[in-house]
C-alpha cells in the first residue's frame, strides 16, 4: 500500500495544494466526489486550487447506472440498506442509555476506587455495544456479498473496469468529503479499496473517514435529538486504529473534559484525531507517520497536538 493523507475540510482555506506539492505528486489526478451526490464532478474550485487537471471518476453516477441496469442488485441493495437502518435504530436506543450512564459516572464524585471500577465497566459496556454493532453490520455486508457476488455482475464489472483504467493512468487519487454513507456505500459497490490500485490517496473530511477502519458519526449540539457519538460502519481500512473527527472544533465540545475522556477511552486503543481546517495526517502502509494541525483526544480529558 502506498501513502495515505487525511486532511481537514477544504472549503474556504484549502491545504490540498500544499500537501500535494510536499508529497511530490504531479498529475494526472483522479478524484472521487461521490459524497457530493448530485454535485458530483463539479471540480472547478478544486482544479483552480490545484492549478491542475483532475478527472472525476463519477462513482455516484456510475453506481446509479449500475442500479438501473441490474434491478436485482438494486433490490438487494435496498433490502440491505433497510436492514442496516433498522439495526442502527436499535443500536441508537441502547447507546443512549449506555452513554448516559458513562456520562453520569464520569461527572460523579465519590470513592475513587469504586468510581474507577464503575467507570471502567461503563466504558466496557460502550465497547461491547459498539463492537457488537460493527459485527452485526459486518454480517449483513458478508451475506449481501455472498448473495450478490458483485465482481461477477456484468454492470459492476464493467464500471469497475472503466474506473480502473482511469486510476491506472493517474498518479494520485483524491477523495472529497460529503455524505459519508453514500460515499462509502458506492465505493464498496464498485470495488472498495482495490479501486485505488496502490496509488497515493489524499482524502478529506468524509473521504478521510471512509478510509479508516471505524467510521464514527458525531455532533454534540444538534438542533434536534440526542448528541450521541455513534459507530456507523467499518470503513475501507486503509488506515487502522484511528477515528478521524472532521470539523471537530465546531461539532464537538472539546472543552468538556468528561466528554473527551469518555470518547478517548471508548475508542481506545484507536486514537481519536481531530481534522479541522488545515489539518493533515500522513500514513504509510496503514501506519501513522506524521501530522500537523490535528489534536488527539486523551484519556485524561485533555487534547494533545499530533506531530509524530
Amino acid at each position, binding site marked *: 500500500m502506498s501513502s495515505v493523507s487525511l486532511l481537514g*475540510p477544504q472549503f474556504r482555506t484549502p491545504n490540498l495544494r500544499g500537501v500535494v506539492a510536499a508529497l511530490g505528486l504531479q498529475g494526472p489526478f483522479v478524484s472521487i466526489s461521490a459524497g457530493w451526490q448530485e454535485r458530483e464532478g463539479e471540480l472547478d474550485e478544486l482544479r483552480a486550487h490545484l492549478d491542475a487537471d483532475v478527472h472525476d471518476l463519477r462513482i455516484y453516477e456510475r453506481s446509479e447506472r449500475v442500479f438501473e441496469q441490474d434491478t436485482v442488485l438494486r433490490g438487494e441493495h435496498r433490502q440491505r440498506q433497510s436492514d442496516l437502518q433498522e439495526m442502527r435504530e436499535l443500536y441508537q436506543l441502547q447507546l443512549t442509555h449506555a452513554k448516559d450512564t458513562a456520562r453520569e459516572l464520569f461527572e460523579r464524585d465519590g470513592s475513587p476506587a469504586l468510581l474507577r471500577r464503575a467507570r471502567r465497566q461503563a466504558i466496557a459496556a460502550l465497547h461491547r455495544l459498539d463492537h457488537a454493532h460493527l459485527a452485526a453490520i459486518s454480517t449483513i455486508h458478508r451475506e449481501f456479498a455472498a448473495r450478490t457476488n458483485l465482481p461477477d455482475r456484468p454492470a459492476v464489472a464493467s464500471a469497475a473496469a472503466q474506473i480502473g483504467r482511469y486510476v491506472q493512468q493517474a498518479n494520485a487519487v483524491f477523495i472529497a*468529503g460529503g455524505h459519508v454513507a453514500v460515499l462509502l456505500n458506492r465505493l464498496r459497490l464498485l470495488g472498495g479499496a482495490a479501486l485505488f490500485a496502490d496509488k497515493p490517496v489524499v482524502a478529506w473530511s468524509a473521504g478521510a*473517514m471512509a478510509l479508516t477502519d471505524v467510521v464514527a458519526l458525531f*455532533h454534540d449540539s444538534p*438542533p434536534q435529538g440526542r448528541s450521541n457519538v455513534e459507530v456507523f460502519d467499518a470503513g475501507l481500512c486503509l488506515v487502522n486504529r484511528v477515528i478521524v473527527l*472532521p470539523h471537530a472544533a465546531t461539532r464537538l465540545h472539546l472543552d468538556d473534559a468528561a466528554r473527551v475522556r469518555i470518547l478517548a477511552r471508548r475508542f481506545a486503543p484507536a486514537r481519536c484525531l481531530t481534522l479541522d481546517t488545515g489539518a493533515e495526517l500522513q500514513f504509510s502502509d496503514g501506519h501513522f507517520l506524521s501530522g500537523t494541525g490535528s489534536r488527539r483526544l486523551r484519556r485524561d480529558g485533555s487534547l494533545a497536538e499530533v506531530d509524530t
Partner: protein
Amino acid sequence: MHAALRALTAHGTPDEAAIVSFLRASKFPLIAADGVTFVYSGDAESVHLRCWISGLAAAQPLERIDGTSLWARHLELPPGSRLEYKFERRTQGKSELILDPLNPVQAADPFGANSVCQAYGYVRPDWTLDDPQARHGTLEELQVSSTALGGQRRALVYLPARFRRTRRYPLLIVHDGEDYLRFASLRTVLDNLIHRLEIAPLIVACTHSPDRLREYAGYEPHARFIVEELLQSLRVQFPLEDTPDTRGLMGASFGGVASLYTAWRYPGMFGRLLLQSGSFAFSDFGEHKRGAVFDPVVKFVNQFRAAPGLPTERAYVSCGIYESLIYENRSILPLLRDRGIEVRYEEARDAHNWENWRDRQRAGLSWLFPGPLWMVYE
C-alpha cells in the same frame, strides 16, 4: 433599582458632571440579574414606559430622581427575556412616543421600530447573524396571476446555495415572507442553517398580502390561491420533491392563522406547519373581545376546534410568554396532538414581534426539515 443608579444617588442629588459621567459609562437600559432599570434623561412633564407585555400595565411611569432631569423605572424581568418598548414623553401638554435615546438597540417592524431591552442572560443566537463562512442562497421574483384573489401576486423565492435543477427540493411557503426577510433575518437564517447542515436545502416562497387582515383571517380565496395557483406555479418553475412531508406552510400572527386554515382546507397537501404566535382566537361561548377584525378568525378557529381533521403530519408551534395569545396557542396543542400530529411547542420570554419569531426559526425549521447533519462532513 440598579446598583449603578443607587451609587449615583447614594450621597444625595448628583451634580451635572456626575450625571454626564454616569450616562457615558453605562449601557441602557441598566441590566441586572433581578431585572432592568429604564432611564430617561431630559426635561419632561412625565415619562412612561410603554411596552406590550400581557399582564403588565401598558404604560408605567418613570420617576424623576429628585433635583435632576433623570427619570428611572425598575422592572422585574426574568433572565433570558426580550422586551420591545418605547417611552411616552409628555412635554408642554403633548404626549409623544419616542425610542429610548440612550439605547442603540432597536428592532424594526412594518410599523417602524422599537427600542429593545435584552434582559440578563439573553443572547442573540449566532445563527441569526451573517456568517462569512456560509454560502449564500439567492432570491428570485415570481409573478403569479391569481383568479382567486384577483390580479397579479408577487412571491420572492429563496433558492439555496448550490441550487441545482437536477435535484429536487422541499418547499416552504411563508406568509408575510417579505417581512420575515426584512425583520426576522429569514435569508440569513436559511443560509446559516443550510450551511451548518441543520436543515435540508429547501426552496422558500415568501408571499406578501396587500390586505393581510382580510386574506389571512380564514379566507377561502387565499387558501385557493396558495394551493391552486402559487403552488402550481412553483411546481412548474422549480424542481420540488412534491410530497406532503416535503411541503410546508409558515406564518406568524395572522400568518399563522392563514397557514393553519390553508392546511385545514386542503388536508394531505402540507405535511409541515410552522406556526408562530398564531392569532388563534376562539370563543367557547358568547362573544369574543378582540374586535371585528378577528370575527372571521374566531369563526374559523371555532370550526377547527369542532372538527380539526388532519391538517398536517408534523407541526412546530411557538408563542411568547408575554403575549396575550399564549392561552390560545396553548389551547391548540391538544387539538393537534390528539389527531396524532407530531408537535414541537416552544415558549419564549418574548412578545408578539419579529425578533421573537426570528429566534425560534432554528428549532422550527430543523424539526420540520431536518438536515443531513449526521451524515455529511464536507
